[in-house]
């Protein structure tokens, strides 16, 4: 445990930033909970499967930020990205097409996708309302029995929920428009590993939310891409 200033100290392993794994190309694998740092575009970029508030990654980035280091993502981007209405507002300001949304406390007209807005909510856990008898229970679930508000996004009949993992702004998804979307989201939030949840229709995808991604959920091609980014091969 080393002091960052008199009277205050942080966990020892955080002091020099996150323990970037010994990046050795031979036999390298993405280890659970591990955080990797990559120098890119003048920023120390943190690759993590958990960018949530009060996580090890969050605090490691915070410590670096307060030390004056240029980091990506910054902590405000981490907060913005995973609170759905804020994510959509920020993305909209960055010129990214986003889903229409309303904040509600109880019933939302179907068809719609709904996200909880509370301390315990995760963007990974959303519900799709289809107009059947289970909708009321789904809304109760995301609002914790009506205690907290939710964010509801209407889905038109010609739209489908599509998802793609973005690795440094690159996706392997064949969905038209998704690559452009991923590039724009990367420019806006600077989160190197994130899943895009979109509502895709004839006009192309609109952003619905961003979700964290576990390394274990990556497809082999996505895993190869991420490793290449960590080793700097993609940026050459």
């Amino acid at each position, binding site marked *: 445990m080393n002091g960052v200033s008199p009277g*205050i*100290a942080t966990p020892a*392993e955080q002091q020099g930033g996150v323990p970037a794994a010994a990046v050795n190309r031979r036999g390298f694998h993405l280890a659970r909970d591990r955080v990797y740092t990559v120098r890119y575009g003048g920023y120390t970029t943190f690759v993590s499967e958990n960018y949530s508030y009060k996580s*090890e990654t*969050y*605090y490691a980035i915070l410590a670096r930020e307060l030390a004056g280091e240029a980091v990506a993502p910054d902590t405000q981007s981490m907060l913005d990205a995973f609170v759905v209405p804020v994510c959509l507002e920020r993305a909209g*300001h960055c010129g990214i097409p986003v889903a229409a949304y309303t904040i509600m406390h109880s019933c939302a007209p179907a068809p719609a996708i709904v996200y909880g*807005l509370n*301390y315990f909510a995760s963007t990974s856990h959303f519900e799709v309302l289809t107009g059947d008898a289970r909708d009321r229970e789904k809304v109760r679930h995301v609002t914790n029995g009506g205690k907290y508000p939710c964010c509801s996004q209407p889905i038109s009949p010609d739209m489908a929920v599509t998802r793609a993992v973005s690795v440094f702004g690159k996706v392997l998804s064949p969905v038209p428009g998704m690559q452009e979307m991923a590039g724009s989201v990367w420019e806006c939030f600077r989160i190197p590993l994130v899943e895009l949840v979109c509502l895709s229709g004839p006009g192309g995808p609109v952003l619905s939310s961003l979700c964290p991604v576990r390394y274990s959920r990556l497809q082999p091609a996505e895993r190869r891409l991420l490793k290449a980014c960590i080793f700097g091969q993609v940026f050459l």
Partner: protein
Amino acid sequence: MSRLGIFVDRRTLSSSDQLTSLIRCRDAAEEMGHSVEFIFPVDIRKIPQMDALFIRARTDPMNITYVASRMAAFAGIPVIDDPESIQVCSDKVNMYMHLARAGVAIPRTLFLSKGDIHPSRVRDIMDDLGTPLVLKEPSTSFSLRVERVEDPAAFIRVARRYLKMSDWVVAQEYVQSTYDWRIGVLRGRFLYACKYIIPSQTFKIQDSVNGHVVYCAVESVPPDAVPAPIRDLGVAAGKAIGDGLYGVDIKDGKEPKVIEVNDNPSLEGGEDGSYPHVYREIVHALLET
């Protein structure tokens, strides 16, 4: 005439004192010639139509208040509490990092992660900070998830509980006192002062004792009765966080120390009894500067 939005949340609006305080705020703004609209979470789309936003609900980066604050920031309108203040004050790790960086006096403080919570390490920490010491989950508010621990077993038990909610927890030197100073700071200037008299049954300003909630008494202190070192420390702590409205809690002693800085400080308990113009000053800061 400008329009002030006051953001409230029915979930955290729970007493007649709070309602009365909101009405006093509205009255102050209207007396100054402004119109006021209360904004609930479902009305959040109205925020960009306002000229300023004053949030009076329990703030946290993970709840609707952060959405409201960011909406105001995106729209370029003045907001108290601003998103950065919510982010810093809602998280004690972040808050103490800001205070330490600015050289503001705080009790000796350690940030601990899962790897620190084993008997030998805990004994070292207790030797270093002394016993008892205080453990805090970073997003504590109203003294929730703050516990005084006397021995390593209690330390480990409490820390493990808090580590389920946060990857870091705060261990802090215990500073005994019968009251805390609360210094109100607005835009880097002294705004008001009061004392929170700590109930005899606990060491916190609010606690549950044998199933009963006990609250501190509030004693507003006129400006000329506030010691200069307390006042200056409060202002310095507020400035270390940002340019908003803060309630700085200070333990008095040989050397006063900041225990915490709160955004969205309570004003319904008589904190501003000796300062009748607090709401006018807040409205002025939001709409007239």
